[in-house]
Each structure stands twice: as C-alpha cells, then as structure tokens.
C-alpha cells in the first residue's frame, strides 16, 4: 500500500514540476525573502542604525514568513482543488484507477503530492530565514519552529479541505475552492481588525464549525514574539484537531469518489 501511495505522490510532485509550478515556489521564496526589507523602506543590511537590530530581524522573520505561508498556502489550495480534475481532463485517470490500487489510496497519494509541495515552500522559507540569521549573527526566536509547525498543520487542513472539495465538486471545483481559499485566507491571523469586523458572521461560522478555532491568532503571532506561555500538550492538540478536521473532509470525498463513475468519453 505504502509503495503505491508513494508512487502516486512522486508522480504528483513530478507533474507539478513539469507544469512549471516549481518556478512559482522559487519566485515566491526569493520575493518573500526580499519583500520585508523594502516594506520597511530601508535596506535590511544598511538601514540598521535607525532601528534596534533585534526588532528589525524579528520584523523580518514575522513578515516574511507570514507572507510566504499565505502565498504558498493559496497556491497549494488552488493546486489541490484542481488536482483530480487535471488528471480527468488529461484522461490519464483510467490507466491509474484500473490498477490494483484502491481509489482512496490514489486520492491520498495526490493529496500528499500537494502537501509535499507546500512543505517544500515552507522548508525553503525556513532555510532562507536561518541563512539570514547565520549571516547576521542572530538567533532565531526560540519557539519559531514550533509556530511554523502549527502554521503548517493549519495549512495542511486547508489544503485537504480544498482537495476534498475539488474531488466532490468536479467541474466547478476551481471556482468554489477559490472562494473558500479567499474566505479562509481572510481569516488568517494577520489581517487588520476592520476586515475582521466586516466578516464577523463568517468568522463565527468558522469558529463554531472548526474544532481548532484557527481564526484565533493568539498562538501563531505570539509565538513569534515570544509573548506566550508555551504549552506542549495544548498546542499539540490544536495541531491534531486541524488534522482531524482535514481528515473528515478527506474521508467524505474518498467515500463519494469510490462510488463515482469514471467516464472517459465525456471527460
């Protein structure tokens, strides 16, 4: 089973690479590494005199990682939503589905492919940040990696939801998932308060339907700034909840996909 899922995952990643999506990842990482310095209207290396060095660096870490995770997540969500549809459109699905592979294994392999892409973006961001730290002789905030991990799991849950919606909705998946992606992206922690207020109703819906309450920005933001008490058990549970939320969507879509006809001539 593992080798079959891994084969699909590998092919899914290769497909993203061949679709030039990997270039997007590279551009994203470069852009995001440079962007915060310009946003501050100062060159990171030469405008240090006006700032306390620590703040500049902390700002850089927070801004660049938020931007990277947001853009990377949006890209991954869009890729996830169209992942199955892309295979149906190219009519390559039948040669895979008729192999001794369960349909849920196939879906899991495709999903892992997109998650691996997202993980690569996040990983590249982390490497960039640590390289800057090394270059400037700074230390990265203590709980930074833990915060990244939490953000990653939130992302995985969103990607899984988008992927599942793509499987369930078929032809209108891209549009629907785009809406969902924008909806959730707006609820990410770093949006201004006035937008928060304008989407108060939506916020509540999400609040009551997601076990992890991912609209709360308390953890992600405060971990970067080192203001919060770290509770391993509580934060692990939050990550687990995110995974379970994604898993429910995945199971539902896998169940429906198993019963679905794969029509070759219409596709």
């Amino acid at each position: 089973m593992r080798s079959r899922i891994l084969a699909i995952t590998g092919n899914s990643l290769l497909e993203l690479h061949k679709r030039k999506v990997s270039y997007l990842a590279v551009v994203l990482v470069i852009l995001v590494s440079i962007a915060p310095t310009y946003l501050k209207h100062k060159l990171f290396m030469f405008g240090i005199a006006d700032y306390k060095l620590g703040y500049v660096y902390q700002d850089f870490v927070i801004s660049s990682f938020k931007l990277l995770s947001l853009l990377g997540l949006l890209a991954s969500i869009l890729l996830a939503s169209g992942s199955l549809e892309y295979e149906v459109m190219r009519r390559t699905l039948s040669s895979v589905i008729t192999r001794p592979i369960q349909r849920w294994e196939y879906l899991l392999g495709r999903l892992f492919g997109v998650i691996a892409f997202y993980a690569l973006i996040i990983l590249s961001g982390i490497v960039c940040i640590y390289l800057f730290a090394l270059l400037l002789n700074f230390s990265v905030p203590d709980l930074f990696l833990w915060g990244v991990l939490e953000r990653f799991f939130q992302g995985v849950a969103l990607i899984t939801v988008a992927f599942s919606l793509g499987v369930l909705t078929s032809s209108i998946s891209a549009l629907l998932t785009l809406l969902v992606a924008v909806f959730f992206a707006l609820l990410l922690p770093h949006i201004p308060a006035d937008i928060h207020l304008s989407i108060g109703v939506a916020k509540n819906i999400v609040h009551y339907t997601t076990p992890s309450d991912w609209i709360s920005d308390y953890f992600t933001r405060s971990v970067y700034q080192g203001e919060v008490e770290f509770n391993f058990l509580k934060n692990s549970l939050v990550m687990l909840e995110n995974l379970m939320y994604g898993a429910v969507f995945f199971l539902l879509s896998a169940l429906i996909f198993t019963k679905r006809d794969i029509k070759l001539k219409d596709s």
Partner: protein
Amino acid sequence: MTELAIEIKGLHKIYRRGFLAKKEICAVRNLNLEIKSGEAWALVGPNGAGKTTTLHCLVGLLNPTSGSITIFGENPLSPDARRKVGFQSEIFFSYSYMNPVDGLKFYGRLSGLKDPDLKERVTKALNLAGLSDCLFQTMGTFSKGMMQRVGLAQSILHDPSVIIWDEPSTGLDPEGRRLVMDLILKLKSEGKTVLLSTHILSDIERVCDHISIINKGGILLSESIDSLLTKHSGKTLEDIYLETVRGKADAQ
C-alpha cells in the same frame, strides 16, 4: 472443468443525465456473459451498443446499476482481482512528460512490481509492443499509434491472467494491427484469457474462439466462431454479424 475467468450476470447500466439526473439512458440491459479461462472472446456491435460500458464495468471504472460481475470469482474492484487484469482503453492517454520506460515503471509500481523484476518486465513489454526504438523519448511527442502501443505494453506489464482491450487496433498502422493479432495469439498460447471489443471482424475470425454480438445494451448472439461459421456455411463472419444486427433491429 475449466475455471470461469469472467462472469457477468444480469448486468444493467443506466446513465443519469439532465437536471437532477432525471433523464435515464440505459446503456446495458440484462447482459450475461461467461468466459472460461484461456479463451479469446470478442465483443462486437454497432457504435453505442454498450461494449465499452460493459468493459468499463468489468474493470471498475463504472459502477453497475444492477447485476453482478466477478473475475475469477472475485469482485472486480478488489486489488486481488485487479492484479489479474490488464486493461487498455480505446484511446490510451498517459503522462506526456514521461518516457515509456518511466511511464511503465510507474504503472508497474502501482501493480505491486518491484525492481529488478520491474525493470526486466518493462523492457520485455516495450519490446513486445514494438517500442524498443523510442524508449527515452517523452510520450508527449508520440503519435496516436505509438501511444496505443504503450497502452498495449502497460496492459501486459504485470503478467495478468485476463486481458481486456477496448478496440486495441484504433490508430494503428497495418504493422501495428498485425502486432496486436500476434500478441493475442501469444497470450492465448500462454493460457491467458482475452476479451476484446473491436469492429474488425476479419481479425476476430483469425484470433478469437468466441464472439458476442451486442446491440442496444443486450447480447443478440453469443457463440463459438467455429460453430457459427459451420452453421452458416458459405457466409463470412461479417455477413452473419450484419444479418444478426439488422435482423434483430427489424424485429425490434
């Protein structure tokens, strides 16, 4: 007694179309078929007769509305049954960015094959399909006929006991068509069961043992080719086919 390789009992397939899926199109109705292990069986019929739908139900692409299908007594959706089946669709599509070697390795891994056996089988399958000259050319540059050959190769890669081909000669040149026929004879000699849908009746006469003529979702005639030709002496398989299809159509 020879084992049943494929057994279809009372197969019905209804496609639902339109708003709230209220419009029903019956593609296959009460289809029964029993194919013994080692037989080469042809499914023929006019366009839209239900051949492809039947084959797709057999390989699990479509879910039957009612009826049952077994492959060597197993549910065709089970991985065990699928391991025994090699399938090629009417027009084979694969990943344009892969070369046939990588493509077949991918399909082989999905079928549970592992190196070094996988590598050996890929080479053998591609040689049998006549693709040994373009092993490392990406499939995006392949012609329709070459893709069909890749399709043939992937269907026999994992040494299945049952081979299901949907119009395997589509897009093939005369040499390719001959290759398909030779391959069927070879597979038959190895004791494999072959079920194919095709419109080329002369080919069927050459390589198949049995024929089922299907129209409007039901089987009109199912018999061994030898006994059919003996019964209608002086007539070709094409004459018998046309008479059957037209006769039943007139009757209906």
